[in-house]
């Protein structure tokens, strides 16, 4: 459970639980996920494949794929000073929009770029078509697409990956939402293009006072962009806190192991530290802490302890119950 410590969270997620029912066996790729999103911050949701980070995002958007269902938990959003349950059907395209991983398939191939960007203006704000197209061109300029007038008549397949992702961002901005949920927005892009797009997101956030959730597997991207980070493992958040604090001084053995496994940009090779074993099969997760079977600090109680994020310091929470690790989180 999360106790709100900071003022004015924009979004509160409590005990989110998502299930997949496949051939009669039920797996829970997102389990007991709770976090708060503060107005104006960039929150990173980081984890390896299968950690449930993308499904968490899609549950927020109400866009879970067929066969995947949110079975528990609550999501509330703030409007003014009131917190109320979030209805994704109504919130999509009004207060929140999403940026997808694969710009090659995320854009309707049969429509011109200007119509794709103009559509949210028309649908969400009742703008007339010609005016919406003009606004679309202006947005294209704002997201750094060269020759926007000419490019606005192009079809998505005629653009490069980087430009397509800029179009995607323009579409999200056209909804005039202030909350952007980004699902691995730069994973499909080259490093110099990634650099541009991440820069664009930083700029846009500042100019338009946006709040961002960034789902990624890349710890370095989180470190570059995110104010706060939530680390996910096997469907659960195991640690949250200010990014710099968490990365400098991880409060959960999994976070620490993950950080140690990343090849650093420092001279000299040498063996990387690895995590023994592999992430659990979601059909058969260990009891208690799900990381305990791979954790060298695990002790008896890890097998029975319930999942619970404990505050160890301001803005710092960890799910680890080992005293030494709680100690580490506090000792900043």
């Amino acid at each position, binding site marked *: 459970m999360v106790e709100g410590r900071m003022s004015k969270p924009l979004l509160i997620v409590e005990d989110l639980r998502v299930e997949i029912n496949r051939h009669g066996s039920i797996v829970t790729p997102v389990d007991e996920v709770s976090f708060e999103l503060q107005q104006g911050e960039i929150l990173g949701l980081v984890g390896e494949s299968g950690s449930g980070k993308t499904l968490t995002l899609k549950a927020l958007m109400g866009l879970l794929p067929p066969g995947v269902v949110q079975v528990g938990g609550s999501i509330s959003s703030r409007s003014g000073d009131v917190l109320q349950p979030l209805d994704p059907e109504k919130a999509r395209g009004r207060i929140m929009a999403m940026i997808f991983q694969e710009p090659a398939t995320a854009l309707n191939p049969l429509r011109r770029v200007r119509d794709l960007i103009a559509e949210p203006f028309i649908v969400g704000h009742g703008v007339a078509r010609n005016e919406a197209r003009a606004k679309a061109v202006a947005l294209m300029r704002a997201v750094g697409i060269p020759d926007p007038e000419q490019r606005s008549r192009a079809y998505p397949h005629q653009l490069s990956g980087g430009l397509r992702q800029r179009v995607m961002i323009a579409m999200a901005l056209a909804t005039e939402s202030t909350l952007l949920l980004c699902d691995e927005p730069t994973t499909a892009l080259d490093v110099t293009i990634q650099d541009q797009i991440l820069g664009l997101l930083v700029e846009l956030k500042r100019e338009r006072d946006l709040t961002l959730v960034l789902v990624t597997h890349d710890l370095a991207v989180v470190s570059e962009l995110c104010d706060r980070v939530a680390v996910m493992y096997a469907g659960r958040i195991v640690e949250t806190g200010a990014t710099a604090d968490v990365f400098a001084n991880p409060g959960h053995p999994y976070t*620490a*192991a993950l950080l*140690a496994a990343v090849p650093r940009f420092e001279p000299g090779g040498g*063996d990387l*530290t*690895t*995590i*023994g*074993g*592999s992430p659990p*099969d979601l059909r*058969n997760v260990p009891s208690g802490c799900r990381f305990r079977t791979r954790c*060298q600090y695990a002790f008896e109680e890890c097998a029975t302890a319930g999942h619970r994020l404990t505050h160890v310091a301001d803005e710092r929470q960890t799910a680890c119950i080992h005293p030494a690790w709680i100690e580490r989180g506090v000792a900043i």
Partner: protein
Amino acid sequence: MMTDGPSQAYESDAVSSRRPLPGILVAGTVIVGVFVLLALLAPFIAPFDAVEQDIPNKLAAPSAEHWLGTDEVGRDVFSRLIWATRVDLPIGFLAALFPMILGTFLGALAAYFGGWVDFVVTRIAEVVQAFPIYVFLIALIFALGPGVKSILITFTVVSWVLYARLIRGEILRIRTREYVQAAEALGYSHARILTRHLLPNAGRQTLVYFASDIVLALITLAALSYFGLGVQPPTPEWGAMVAAGQRFLRTQWWLSVTPGLVIAALGTGLSLISDGLDEWLKDA
């Protein structure tokens, strides 16, 4: 901090749990199995001979002796339906098997070697495809004369095209897979790459299509016999039986109705196998 254990744990539970066969695949196999048994055991199951006439007892209504009555020359309809399994089932099967063999061979060659081989095969396929293929079948059987042999020849000449296109597309797709490139990097021979690395993986869709193609072949064979171009009387054949019964539709309607139901039953079994295979092989 943490050391590298003997790498990732082996997902032993995943290995032992083989995926169950889809229910529809089992159901389809049972249905088709029954027909295969009927064909094999026809002499023991069928109460009467297939061709022996009994004119005085013609067009009899269903009775305890003749479960489905008798036809216009007094032959037992129930027995003829069973005996016809020996005709329709193997011809339908072969009329899909031969084109599959030819089409797979040509399609695989075209896709693997490309160049002029591909050019020639694709052009011929285009011409054959320009015809409504089953109408072309009628024209070809007309040219070759009716009978089982020309049916098998024409089916092969006409419907190999679908198999060739299918396998060609699959192989072109799979050729870019890294395991095929690895095989090339290892210097494997063309024959080995084709037979061990390409065909087993490209052939899944072909297998699915093969099962449904037998249905098409069965229906087409029945239609040809209905026109009098297929299996010639007095050999029992379902389509021909429908045609013969059509004259007596007002009075002995069962003569036309029952063979159609039998075709539909066998067809359903095969379609279930096709859909079941598709489901089973999809994410294998």
